[in-house]
Protein backbone atom coordinates (compact mmCIF):
# COMPACT_ATOMS: atom_id res chain seq x y z
CA UNK A 1 0.00 0.00 0.00
CA UNK A 2 1.15 3.50 -0.71
CA UNK A 3 -0.33 6.42 1.20
CA UNK A 4 0.24 10.17 1.04
CA UNK A 5 3.21 9.96 3.38
CA UNK A 6 4.91 7.37 1.18
CA UNK A 7 4.13 9.37 -1.93
CA UNK A 8 5.66 12.41 -0.20
CA UNK A 9 8.75 10.28 0.39
CA UNK A 10 8.81 9.11 -3.25
CA UNK A 11 8.73 12.75 -4.40
CA UNK A 12 10.97 14.16 -1.70
CA UNK A 13 12.65 17.35 -2.85
CA UNK A 14 13.72 19.82 -0.21
CA UNK A 15 14.79 23.40 -0.83
CA UNK A 16 18.34 24.11 0.30
CA UNK A 17 19.64 20.74 -0.93
CA UNK A 18 23.31 21.33 -1.77
CA UNK A 19 23.48 18.48 -4.32
CA UNK A 20 26.03 15.70 -4.69
CA UNK A 21 29.16 17.63 -5.66
CA UNK A 22 29.06 19.98 -2.67
CA UNK A 23 29.57 17.09 -0.27
CA UNK A 24 32.65 15.64 -1.93
CA UNK A 25 35.30 18.07 -0.66
CA UNK A 26 33.85 18.36 2.85
CA UNK A 27 32.78 14.75 3.53
CA UNK A 28 35.77 14.14 5.82
CA UNK A 29 35.08 17.33 7.81
CA UNK A 30 31.40 16.43 8.05
CA UNK A 31 32.25 13.01 9.45
CA UNK A 32 34.79 14.40 11.91
CA UNK A 33 32.16 16.74 13.34
CA UNK A 34 29.87 13.76 13.89
CA UNK A 35 32.63 11.75 15.53
CA UNK A 36 33.23 14.66 17.93
CA UNK A 37 29.54 14.65 18.84
CA UNK A 38 28.87 17.96 17.08
CA UNK A 39 26.01 18.66 14.69
CA UNK A 40 27.37 18.92 11.12
CA UNK A 41 24.09 20.40 9.87
CA UNK A 42 24.98 23.68 11.58
CA UNK A 43 28.11 24.08 9.48
CA UNK A 44 26.97 22.24 6.36
CA UNK A 45 23.16 22.62 6.25
CA UNK A 46 22.84 22.00 2.50
CA UNK A 47 24.79 18.77 2.67
CA UNK A 48 22.84 17.63 5.74
CA UNK A 49 19.62 18.01 3.72
CA UNK A 50 21.18 16.27 0.75
CA UNK A 51 22.36 13.28 2.75
CA UNK A 52 18.80 12.66 3.92
CA UNK A 53 17.50 12.29 0.36
CA UNK A 54 20.37 10.99 -1.82
CA UNK A 55 21.01 7.27 -1.24
CA UNK A 56 24.30 7.36 -3.18
CA UNK A 57 25.84 10.15 -1.13
CA UNK A 58 24.40 8.74 2.07
CA UNK A 59 26.09 5.40 1.37
CA UNK A 60 29.40 7.19 0.81
CA UNK A 61 28.96 9.21 3.98
CA UNK A 62 28.14 6.09 6.00
CA UNK A 63 31.20 4.36 4.55
CA UNK A 64 33.57 7.18 5.46
CA UNK A 65 32.05 7.38 8.95
CA UNK A 66 32.41 3.63 9.43
CA UNK A 67 36.01 3.61 8.17
CA UNK A 68 36.95 6.56 10.38
CA UNK A 69 35.41 4.87 13.41
CA UNK A 70 36.97 1.49 12.73
CA UNK A 71 40.39 2.44 11.37
CA UNK A 72 40.72 6.07 12.46
CA UNK A 73 43.48 5.59 14.99
CA UNK A 74 46.06 4.23 12.55
CA UNK A 75 49.43 5.96 12.71
CA UNK A 76 52.13 6.01 10.05
CA UNK A 77 54.80 4.41 12.28
Amino acid at each position, binding site marked *: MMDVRELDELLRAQEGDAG*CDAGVPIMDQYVELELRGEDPSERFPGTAIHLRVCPGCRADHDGVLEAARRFGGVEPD
Partner: protein
Amino acid sequence: MSDSWRVAAPSYRKRVYDRHVGVDQRSAAADPVSRRWVEQLHSSHPRYEQAAARLHDVLRRAALHELHRRRALLPSLAGPELDDVAQQCAHDAMLNVLARIDDFQGLSRFTTWAYKFVIFEVSSKLARHTWQRLPPSRTDPEWAELPDMAAGVRPGEQAENRERLGVLRNAIEQDLTPRQREVFVAIALNDVPIDVLALQLDSNRNAIYKNLFDARRKLRGCLAGAGYPLTDEEAQA
Protein backbone atom coordinates in the same frame (compact mmCIF):
# COMPACT_ATOMS: atom_id res chain seq x y z
CA MET B 1 49.59 -7.37 -4.03
CA SER B 2 49.93 -4.75 -6.73
CA ASP B 3 52.49 -2.09 -5.88
CA SER B 4 52.11 -0.14 -9.10
CA TRP B 5 51.29 3.00 -7.14
CA ARG B 6 55.00 3.04 -6.35
CA VAL B 7 55.71 3.47 -10.07
CA ALA B 8 53.64 6.64 -10.08
CA ALA B 9 55.41 7.96 -7.03
CA PRO B 10 58.42 9.68 -8.72
CA SER B 11 56.34 12.39 -10.41
CA TYR B 12 54.47 12.85 -7.18
CA ARG B 13 57.71 12.94 -5.25
CA LYS B 14 59.20 15.61 -7.46
CA ARG B 15 56.09 17.74 -7.30
CA VAL B 16 55.83 17.50 -3.54
CA TYR B 17 59.53 18.08 -3.14
CA ASP B 18 59.23 21.27 -5.18
CA ARG B 19 56.40 22.42 -2.97
CA HIS B 20 57.58 21.10 0.35
CA VAL B 21 57.32 24.42 2.14
CA GLY B 22 53.80 24.89 0.79
CA VAL B 23 52.73 21.49 2.03
CA ASP B 24 53.94 22.28 5.52
CA GLN B 25 52.06 25.56 5.51
CA ARG B 26 48.83 24.05 4.24
CA SER B 27 48.83 21.21 6.75
CA ALA B 28 49.97 23.39 9.65
CA ALA B 29 46.54 23.14 11.29
CA ALA B 30 46.63 19.33 11.28
CA ASP B 31 46.80 17.25 14.45
CA PRO B 32 50.22 15.72 15.28
CA VAL B 33 49.43 12.26 13.86
CA SER B 34 48.11 13.75 10.61
CA ARG B 35 51.22 15.91 10.32
CA ARG B 36 53.36 12.79 10.67
CA TRP B 37 51.39 11.10 7.90
CA VAL B 38 51.93 14.05 5.56
CA GLU B 39 55.59 14.38 6.46
CA GLN B 40 56.32 10.68 6.04
CA LEU B 41 54.43 10.48 2.76
CA HIS B 42 56.88 13.03 1.44
CA SER B 43 59.31 11.24 -0.84
CA SER B 44 62.40 12.69 0.80
CA HIS B 45 61.40 11.32 4.18
CA PRO B 46 63.41 8.27 5.28
CA ARG B 47 60.19 6.46 6.26
CA TYR B 48 58.37 7.17 2.99
CA GLU B 49 58.23 3.53 1.83
CA GLN B 50 56.97 2.25 5.18
CA ALA B 51 54.35 5.00 5.55
CA ALA B 52 53.09 4.49 1.99
CA ALA B 53 52.87 0.73 2.49
CA ARG B 54 51.03 1.22 5.78
CA LEU B 55 48.55 3.61 4.19
CA HIS B 56 47.98 1.24 1.29
CA ASP B 57 47.29 -1.60 3.72
CA VAL B 58 44.76 0.36 5.76
CA LEU B 59 43.04 1.62 2.61
CA ARG B 60 42.74 -1.97 1.42
CA ARG B 61 41.22 -3.03 4.73
CA ALA B 62 38.80 -0.10 4.67
CA ALA B 63 37.80 -0.98 1.09
CA LEU B 64 37.23 -4.63 1.98
CA HIS B 65 35.13 -3.66 4.98
CA GLU B 66 33.06 -1.30 2.83
CA LEU B 67 32.57 -3.94 0.14
CA HIS B 68 31.25 -6.32 2.78
CA ARG B 69 28.98 -3.56 4.12
CA ARG B 70 27.48 -3.06 0.65
CA ARG B 71 27.52 -6.74 -0.31
CA ALA B 72 23.72 -6.88 -0.60
CA LEU B 73 24.06 -4.82 -3.78
CA LEU B 74 26.28 -7.43 -5.35
CA PRO B 75 25.55 -10.93 -4.12
CA SER B 76 27.60 -12.34 -7.00
CA LEU B 77 30.80 -10.84 -5.57
CA ALA B 78 32.48 -13.05 -3.00
CA GLY B 79 35.76 -14.36 -1.67
CA PRO B 80 38.79 -13.75 -3.88
CA GLU B 81 36.85 -11.45 -6.19
CA LEU B 82 35.97 -9.16 -3.28
CA ASP B 83 39.63 -9.15 -2.23
CA ASP B 84 40.62 -8.25 -5.78
CA VAL B 85 38.17 -5.34 -5.97
CA ALA B 86 39.37 -4.12 -2.56
CA GLN B 87 42.94 -4.21 -3.84
CA GLN B 88 41.98 -2.18 -6.92
CA CYS B 89 40.12 0.37 -4.78
CA ALA B 90 43.09 0.75 -2.45
CA HIS B 91 45.45 1.12 -5.38
CA ASP B 92 43.41 3.84 -7.08
CA ALA B 93 42.72 5.65 -3.80
CA MET B 94 46.43 5.55 -3.03
CA LEU B 95 47.20 7.27 -6.33
CA ASN B 96 44.61 9.94 -5.55
CA VAL B 97 45.87 10.52 -2.03
CA LEU B 98 49.48 10.87 -3.20
CA ALA B 99 48.52 13.13 -6.09
CA ARG B 100 46.39 15.41 -3.92
CA ILE B 101 48.30 15.40 -0.68
CA ASP B 102 49.10 19.08 -1.27
CA ASP B 103 45.42 19.78 -0.84
CA PHE B 104 45.22 18.31 2.65
CA GLN B 105 44.58 21.25 4.96
CA GLY B 106 44.31 19.48 8.30
CA LEU B 107 40.58 20.21 8.61
CA SER B 108 40.02 16.55 9.45
CA ARG B 109 42.32 13.73 10.49
CA PHE B 110 44.53 12.64 7.62
CA THR B 111 43.15 9.11 7.73
CA THR B 112 39.53 10.33 7.47
CA TRP B 113 40.54 12.45 4.49
CA ALA B 114 42.23 9.42 2.89
CA TYR B 115 39.27 7.09 3.60
CA LYS B 116 37.07 9.46 1.62
CA PHE B 117 39.04 8.55 -1.51
CA VAL B 118 38.80 4.82 -0.98
CA ILE B 119 35.06 4.92 -0.23
CA PHE B 120 34.48 6.90 -3.45
CA GLU B 121 36.47 4.22 -5.30
CA VAL B 122 34.28 1.50 -3.80
CA SER B 123 31.16 3.37 -4.95
CA SER B 124 32.52 3.82 -8.43
CA LYS B 125 33.66 0.23 -8.88
CA LEU B 126 30.48 -1.27 -7.45
CA ALA B 127 28.40 0.92 -9.78
CA ARG B 128 30.38 -0.31 -12.79
CA HIS B 129 30.05 -3.91 -11.64
CA THR B 130 26.28 -3.52 -11.16
CA TRP B 131 25.83 -1.70 -14.47
CA GLN B 132 27.42 -4.58 -16.36
CA ARG B 133 24.86 -6.96 -14.84
CA LEU B 134 21.75 -4.75 -14.81
CA PRO B 135 18.71 -5.96 -16.79
CA PRO B 136 18.07 -3.29 -19.49
CA SER B 137 14.40 -3.06 -18.51
CA ARG B 138 15.28 -1.40 -15.22
CA THR B 139 16.14 1.86 -16.97
CA ASP B 140 13.37 1.68 -19.56
CA PRO B 141 10.82 4.47 -18.91
CA GLU B 142 8.07 2.27 -20.34
CA TRP B 143 8.73 -0.27 -17.64
CA ALA B 144 7.54 2.00 -14.82
CA GLU B 145 5.42 0.37 -12.16
CA LEU B 146 3.75 2.80 -9.82
CA PRO B 147 3.00 1.24 -6.44
CA ASP B 148 -0.58 0.37 -5.65
CA MET B 149 -1.95 3.32 -3.76
CA ALA B 150 -5.40 1.90 -3.26
CA ALA B 151 -4.91 -1.37 -1.41
CA GLY B 152 -5.70 -1.62 2.27
CA VAL B 153 -7.32 1.77 2.81
CA ARG B 154 -10.95 2.78 3.40
CA PRO B 155 -13.22 3.06 0.32
CA GLY B 156 -13.27 6.86 0.32
CA GLU B 157 -9.50 7.04 0.61
CA GLN B 158 -9.16 4.42 -2.14
CA ALA B 159 -10.97 6.63 -4.61
CA GLU B 160 -8.88 9.67 -3.69
CA ASN B 161 -5.67 7.68 -3.85
CA ARG B 162 -6.60 6.36 -7.30
CA GLU B 163 -7.28 9.88 -8.52
CA ARG B 164 -4.00 11.11 -7.06
CA LEU B 165 -2.19 8.24 -8.75
CA GLY B 166 -3.86 9.12 -12.06
CA VAL B 167 -2.65 12.71 -11.78
CA LEU B 168 0.83 11.46 -11.03
CA ARG B 169 0.83 9.07 -14.01
CA ASN B 170 -0.27 11.84 -16.34
CA ALA B 171 2.30 14.25 -14.95
CA ILE B 172 5.08 11.68 -15.41
CA GLU B 173 4.04 11.14 -19.02
CA GLN B 174 3.20 14.71 -20.00
CA ASP B 175 4.98 17.20 -17.75
CA LEU B 176 8.44 15.76 -17.33
CA THR B 177 11.11 16.18 -19.99
CA PRO B 178 12.26 12.87 -21.53
CA ARG B 179 15.43 13.01 -19.44
CA GLN B 180 13.57 13.78 -16.22
CA ARG B 181 11.15 10.93 -16.95
CA GLU B 182 13.96 8.50 -17.65
CA VAL B 183 15.78 9.42 -14.44
CA PHE B 184 12.68 9.49 -12.23
CA VAL B 185 11.39 6.15 -13.48
CA ALA B 186 14.75 4.43 -13.12
CA ILE B 187 15.70 5.74 -9.68
CA ALA B 188 12.45 6.53 -7.88
CA LEU B 189 10.28 3.76 -9.28
CA ASN B 190 12.65 1.01 -10.37
CA ASP B 191 15.31 1.42 -7.66
CA VAL B 192 18.25 1.71 -10.05
CA PRO B 193 21.23 3.06 -8.04
CA ILE B 194 22.07 6.62 -9.04
CA ASP B 195 25.71 5.82 -9.92
CA VAL B 196 24.59 2.94 -12.13
CA LEU B 197 22.19 5.19 -14.02
CA ALA B 198 24.93 7.82 -14.36
CA LEU B 199 27.09 5.20 -16.10
CA GLN B 200 24.18 4.08 -18.25
CA LEU B 201 23.49 7.64 -19.41
CA ASP B 202 27.16 8.61 -19.68
CA SER B 203 26.63 11.29 -17.05
CA ASN B 204 27.62 11.85 -13.42
CA ARG B 205 25.92 11.53 -10.05
CA ASN B 206 25.41 15.26 -9.55
CA ALA B 207 23.80 15.84 -12.96
CA ILE B 208 21.50 12.84 -12.54
CA TYR B 209 20.53 13.99 -9.06
CA LYS B 210 19.66 17.44 -10.46
CA ASN B 211 17.36 15.77 -13.04
CA LEU B 212 15.72 13.76 -10.27
CA PHE B 213 15.31 16.78 -8.00
CA ASP B 214 13.72 18.83 -10.79
CA ALA B 215 11.41 15.94 -11.73
CA ARG B 216 10.24 15.47 -8.18
CA ARG B 217 9.63 19.18 -7.70
CA LYS B 218 7.65 19.34 -10.95
CA LEU B 219 5.53 16.31 -10.00
CA ARG B 220 4.77 17.76 -6.57
CA GLY B 221 3.71 20.98 -8.27
CA CYS B 222 1.41 19.05 -10.64
CA LEU B 223 -0.21 17.19 -7.74
CA ALA B 224 -0.70 20.39 -5.75
CA GLY B 225 -2.07 22.15 -8.82
CA ALA B 226 -4.64 19.37 -9.28
CA GLY B 227 -5.77 19.68 -5.68
CA TYR B 228 -3.61 16.95 -4.16
CA PRO B 229 -0.93 18.73 -2.15
CA LEU B 230 1.35 16.43 -0.16
CA THR B 231 2.17 18.87 2.63
CA ASP B 232 0.44 21.68 4.48
CA GLU B 233 2.89 24.15 2.92
CA GLU B 234 1.91 23.02 -0.57
CA ALA B 235 -1.77 23.26 0.35
CA GLN B 236 -1.32 26.87 1.44
CA ALA B 237 0.82 27.90 -1.53
